[in-house]
Every structure is written in structure tokens, then in C-alpha cells.
């Protein structure tokens, strides 16, 4: 039932994937429309708050403090969660996390089946962490059928598709496409086209599962160290159903999700909804602590997963990536993401945050094109609610990619050679002058006069050809600035106001 995986190990490089996706006019229209709507809503509700910048600073400081003392806060969470009746499990990597969840799910289902015959099924609340580890595939392989209950995740699951956004996973689909999926997969030949019709179909489809399936898997927005509580915010109420109706609840969370105190939610429950969906507050804010007699799940498990987060933590420059609270604002504002959508990134974490998170969670060779999937325009940094300097981390990761790729014979790659040569040129005035003269000679054969008599280049060889696929390049002027300056200097002190160079009309 689960669709193809977004796996950086097998995904094509970003430029290749983007090349194909850019031809999908419908997808681009959908992504453009959806990101514009959310972006504008966000801007409106952020502008309402006079202390937004102070909130961002507070968010950044709390996250930085937490990451500096992560070990202590995780142990505190474990202690308090256990005391409240929860069971904490530790997973080193994705494989371990999958094994633990599958085992817990099997045990819960077996216990249910001892009481009454029931199929092996579980409910799921939207969770990018379970997407990160490909949990649905592992459950299916173990004979357990997962039901996604978030509307967007349901669309993805029924359409055998892949999530393209961390908050709005089906953002690349429009209403017509969703209608087709529901009609086909829910066997509803007479399904209407209005949003109400589609919502009602999903409601009827899901409600029956909520009432029948007694085991659920969730992610977490925040783990509260001080109380051992877990917090999830959502908009549809499916989360509340999954957190309260089942008898067994299994939560999978990255170790980066911990916050120190309950009162820190004051900051994050303002930053997150405004940044994520442009809402002042999420319609559903659930916080639960352990288990209670006759109220909610009888068994509660938390799987705390590392999966390379500690190695991110060990990198001084990259560390702030872990401060992310998964709001997706950087995706909505990113001019690159807005052209390609999320699938181009070959990872469940797309957009600017994906471009820095994925290469750090994976071995670099599997995601080396992602740090380059940005024009470094800085819009992501500007909207990030916890002030992660994404452009700076992109540059840091590019440096790592280069160091990795230029080892040994890699130093002979054309780009590496060109960069080395240019660095050598820039270290000497005379070499720089010679290079300028050479460039002027070299571009002559490529230049053609246009109607107005200007010389332009329409084709460039090799890797420079990327430029001329959509842009012309004006031929080099006959004189560099420094040549003009020297001539002017040599002339007998001309009056400054009469100084006229040979204008390079553009």
C-alpha cells in the first residue's frame, strides 16, 4: 500500500530531478499556488505580533541551550516519562527504530487478537520522522497494515505518492487530482468535486478506522523534559483521535525534539503555528504525559531515535540544523522549492531545511547535490522561527562536499582545476591582468554582433553552457576598468568632472 520511497541513496541528483519536474506544468502551478497562499497567511499573522523578533531570539536561545545539554534533557525526559507510566526505548538508527516499532506493534496487535479476532492494522498520525525511516514499508513487510489519518498523508498513501512538504505533504496535488485518487481508491463513482465532498469522503473513510483499530503510531512536535510529556499540534483532529481512542500508542521522535520546560511551549506554540500554516494557534494542541486509568491509551511507548543526529551535534557549524522545529516556512518562501516542489530533493526533508538536514543525516556522497540546490538568497534565514542561518550552513556543507570530492584524483575534476587556477590568478596582479587579456581574446570567436551592433555570446562550451541555455552573455568590453584608470592617471591631471571613459553600453 505504501508508495515509492524518497531515498537519498538512490535518488537522482537535484539538477537531474529538477530538470524533469520543471516540465510538469500542473505540479508547478499547484506548488506555486499553495506556497503563495501559506506564505501570505504567514506574513499576515507574523506582522500582528510586535515582539516577533524577540520570540525568534527566544526560540533560538532555548533550542541552542537544549542542544548544548541534550544528554541531560533526554535523561530527564526518560525519567519523567517513565515515572508517568510511559515506556522509553532508545534507537541508534533507522533500522533499530523500525525493529522496535514493529515489535511493539506486533505485541499490541497479538494482545488484541487474544481478546477478539481482528486484522493486523495500525493508525498513523502524520510524522516526518516515520517517513524518514520508511516505517510504513517495514510494517507492511511484517504483515501490518498502516492507515495514514492526516488528510494529506492519506492522499499520498492512497495515491502511492511521496510527501513533498514537511507540513503539507500533498501540496503538489490539486483538488481535481485528489478527487481522482479518492474516487478510485475509495470506490466512490459518484463522489462530488467540492472541498466539502472530499472532506466528507475522507471523514467517512477514516472514522471507521478510528473506531476499529486499537493501535496507533505517532511522531512528536515536542518532548517536554521537565514533565515527561509529549506535544503534538495539528489542524484536523485526526491526531486527537489517534492519541485518545487506541489502547496502545507508540510515539517515534528524533532526539532533537526535546525542550527543557513546559513553559517553553509558550514560545514554540506561538512560533510554530504562525510559521507553519499561518494560524495564530493550531486547532488541536495535544499534550499527554504517560498513561491514565480509564482515559486514553493503556500502554504508551516512546522511541527516542538518534539516526545521525548526534553526529550533526558534533559539527560546530552544522549543529544549529537540529534547532529546526519543522514548520516548513523555509520551503514556502524558497524560490528554488517553489519552482521544483519537494520531490526534486530526493528526501522526505525538502526545501532549504532538507538541503542542509539530508546531507548531514546521510553520508555525504548520497546527497552531495543538495547543498548546491540554492541561490543563497537568504529568504529561508529571514523567515526561520528559530533563526537557523541556512545559507551559512549550505556554504559550510559545500565546503565539505568539495573536500570530499577533491580527494586524490578528484582534484583533477574540471571544476576543481578551474577553481584552483583562478585562485592562483587572483594571487597576483600581473597574472590577473594576463587572464583579463586572455579572456578578451578567447571570447572573440564566440561573439556575434546583434541588431544594435553590440557583441553578444549565445553559446558557451562545457560546464559554462548552463549559462547560455537561457541567457546570452555580453562580450567583454575593449578595456578593463584598471586600464581606463591608468590611462586617466597618466593624462595630465584631468578635471574630475570631465573624466570620460569609454562607456561600455549595456
Amino acid at each position, binding site marked *: 500500500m505504501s508508495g515509492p520511497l524518497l531515498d537519498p541513496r538512490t535518488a537522482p541528483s537535484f539538477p537531474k530531478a529538477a530538470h524533469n519536474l520543471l516540465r510538469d506544468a500542473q505540479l508547478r502551478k499547484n506548488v506555486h499556488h499553495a506556497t503563495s497562499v501559506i506564505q501570505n497567511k504567514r506574513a499576515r499573522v507574523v506582522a500582528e505580533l510586535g515582539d516577533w523578533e524577540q520570540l525568534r531570539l527566544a526560540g533560538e536561545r532555548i533550542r541552542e541551550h537544549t542542544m548544548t545539554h541534550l544528554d541531560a534533557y533526554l535523561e530527564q525526559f526518560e525519567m519523567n516519562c517513565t515515572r508517568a507510566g510511559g515506556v522509553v526505548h532508545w534507537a541508534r538508527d533507522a533500522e533499530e527504530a523500525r525493529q522496535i516499532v514493529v515489535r511493539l506493534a506486533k505485541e499490541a496487535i497479538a494482545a488484541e487478537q487474544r481478546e477478539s479476532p481482528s486484522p493486523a492494522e495500525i493508525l498513523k498520525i502524520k510524522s516526518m520522522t516515520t517517513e524518514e525511516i520508511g516505517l510504513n514499508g517495514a510494517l507492511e513487510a511484517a504483515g501490518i497494515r498502516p492507515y495514514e489519518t492526516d488528510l494529506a498523508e492519506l492522499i499520498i498513501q492512497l495515491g502511492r505518492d511521496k510527501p513533498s512538504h514537511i507540513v503539507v505533504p500533498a501540496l503538489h496535488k490539486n483538488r481535481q487530482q485528489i478527487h481522482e485518487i479518492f474516487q478510485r481508491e475509495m470506490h466512490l463513482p459518484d463522489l462530488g468535486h467540492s472541498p466539502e465532498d472530499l472532506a466528507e469522503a475522507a471523514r467517512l473513510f477514516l472514522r471507521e478506522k478510528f473506531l476499529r483499530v486499537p493501535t496507533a503510531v505517532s511522531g512528536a512536535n515536542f518532548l517536554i523534559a521537565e514533565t515527561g510529556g509529549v506535544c503534538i499540534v495539528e489542524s484536523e483532529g485526526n491526531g486527537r483521535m489517534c492519541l485518545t481512542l487506541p489502547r496502545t500508542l507508540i510515539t517515534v521522535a528524533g532526539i532533537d525534539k526535546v525542550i527543557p520546560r513546559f513553559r517553553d511551549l509558550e514560545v514554540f506554540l506561538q512560533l510554530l503555528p504562525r510559521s507553519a500554516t499561518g494560524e495564530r494557534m493550531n486547532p488541536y494542541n495535544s499534550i499527554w504525559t504517560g498513561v491514565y486509568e480509564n482515559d486514553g491509551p493503556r500502554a504508551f511507548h516512546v522511541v527516542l531515535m538518534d539516526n545521525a543526529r548526534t553526529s550533526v551535534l558534533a559539527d560546530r557549524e552544522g549543529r544549529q540544523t537540529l534547532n529546526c522545529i519543522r514548520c516548513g516556512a523555509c520551503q514556502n518562501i524558497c524560490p528554488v522549492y517553489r519552482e521544483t516542489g519537494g520531490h526534486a530533493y530526493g528526501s522526505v526533508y525538502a526545501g532549504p531545511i532538507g538541503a542542509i538536514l539530508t546531507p548531514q543525516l546521510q553520508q555525504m556522497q548520497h546527497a552531495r547535490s543538495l547543498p548546491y540546490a540554492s541561490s543563497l538568497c537568504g529568504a529561508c534565514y529571514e523567515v526561520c522561527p528559530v533563526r537557523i542561518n541556512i545559507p551559512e550552513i549550505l556554504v559550510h556543507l559545500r565546503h565539505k562536499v568539495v573536500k570530499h570530492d577533491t580527494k586524490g584524483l578528484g582534484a583533477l575534476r574540471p571544476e576543481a582545476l578551474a577553481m584552483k587556477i583562478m585562485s592562483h590568478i587572483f594571487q597576483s596582479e600581473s597574472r*590577473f591582468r594576463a587572464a583579463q587579456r586572455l579572456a578578451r581574446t578567447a571570447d572573440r570567436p564566440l561573439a556575434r554582433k546583434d541588431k544594435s551592433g553590440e557583441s553578444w555570446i549565445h553559446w558557451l562550451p562545457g560546464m559554462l553552457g548552463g549559462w547560455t541555455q537561457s541567457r546570452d552573455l555580453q562580450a567583454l568590453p575593449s578595456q578593463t576598468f584598471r586600464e581606463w584608470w591608468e590611462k586617466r592617471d597618466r593624462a595630465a591631471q584631468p578635471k574630475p568632472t570631465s573624466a570620460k571613459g569609454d562607456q561600455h553600453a549595456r
Partner: protein
Amino acid sequence: MTSLGDPLRISLFITCYNDTLFPATGQAVVRVLERLGHTVDFPAGQTCCGQMHVNTGYWDEALPMIPRFVEQFRNSEAVVVPSSSCVAHMREHYPAMARQLEATGKYSGLAAEVEALLPRVYEFSELLTKRLGITDLGSIFPHRVTYHASCHGLRSLQLGDGPTSLLRSVNDIDLAPLPGLEQCCGFGGTFAIKNADVSSAMLDEKLDAVLSTKAEIVTACDNSCLMHINGGLHRRGCNVRTMHIAEILAGEEEAR
């Protein structure tokens, strides 16, 4: 014309690509500053700030540019750079790069020199508005112009309303606001080549916005964006042209 304080000796850091590709920009910077009564010098040993290397991941190859820059400009009263992205790069990376170099033991005192020099380094429009307090240059430019806020100028240097206020003061100018002002044109240095398809898609949006203004000229504080926009306009066969803000502010006569 208004100018704060005494005439300055201003050193021009033209940057490698302006030197090679856009000499008219440097000439305009000289003209504007001399018209204001300042002295301009041009340290001949200057080459490149290293932005392209760093932004492409070649951090180590950019390191030698820092001691060279300091050597050329350490005695300058003020340094003017007609490129917002180069200034942004220098402010964002030079301190860390200088510390790294100094840690090798070969560049004693470099970090302190960089810290002392950087506050005297100004992007061109920033020098006029923030250092010299200029509000009106008395320039003439009788054309319809739209201003593109380069990402580095907008977000990193926080130029804000500075460049547009200078443009508004130009006589006979017809200034048209550019829709989607905060959106990147898709240049991004080597991004334009490494991700040519996405870069081109971003450029298409920018070109549509430019054409919607019916402007004859697109201007900016950064010729790298303008080279990108101009290349796209020429490929589309449009007559709209690009011009660095210094060339507009230098305008005393009919521009071509």
C-alpha cells in the same frame, strides 16, 4: 548636493568581475565621488574578494584573498565596493577566515586588522547614504527605471530604502516599482550553471516582473544580478537594458 564632513580619500575596490566586464560602473563610481569633492584612489594590486570560491565550496582556495585585500586597503579612510554580494561575503566570512589564517601562525595580527578594516568597507549606495549622508546628488536621468533589490543588498546588508531614496532624488527619472521585489533573480553565482534549469525558471519570473513595469532600464547595486537579468532580456529579444545604480547617479547627460 549635501555632504557630511570633510572630503575623504576613498579607495575603490572595483571587484574582479566589475573590473573585467563592467568598467563603466567603476568609471561612474569615480565620477560621482569626485563630483562630491572626494578623492578616489585605486590600489593596483587588488584582484578578487573570493566570494565565488567560498560560495561554491572552495573555502581554502579563497583564503589567500584576505591578506591581499588587507595589504591593499589597510590604510584607506573608506573603501567603496560597487557590488553588494562581495561586501556581504566580506562581512560574513572575512573575520572567520582571518582567524583561521592567523591560527596557522603565518599571519600574525590579521584577524585584528580585518576587524578594524571591515567597518570602513561600504557598498556604493551605502557609502552615499550611511557614511556621507547624501540625499540628493543633483543627477539627471530622463528614463523609466525599475530597481531590483539584490538578495545580498536586501537581506545581508539591509540596504532598505537607501538605494531607492537615491534614485527618487534623480531629476527626470520615472521610477517604477518592481513587483516581487524580494524575490531572487536566480543568479546565485555558480548556481546559475550548476542548476541552470531552476535558475532559468527563476529568471523567467523576474523577467516577466521587469517587463510588467514597462521600464527601459533595470538597475541594482549588483552587476552580477544585472548580468543575469540582462542576459535573459537579450535572449528574449527585449530592448530593456540594465545599468548599475552608480551609472544612473552619475547621469548628467542623455544615457545611451
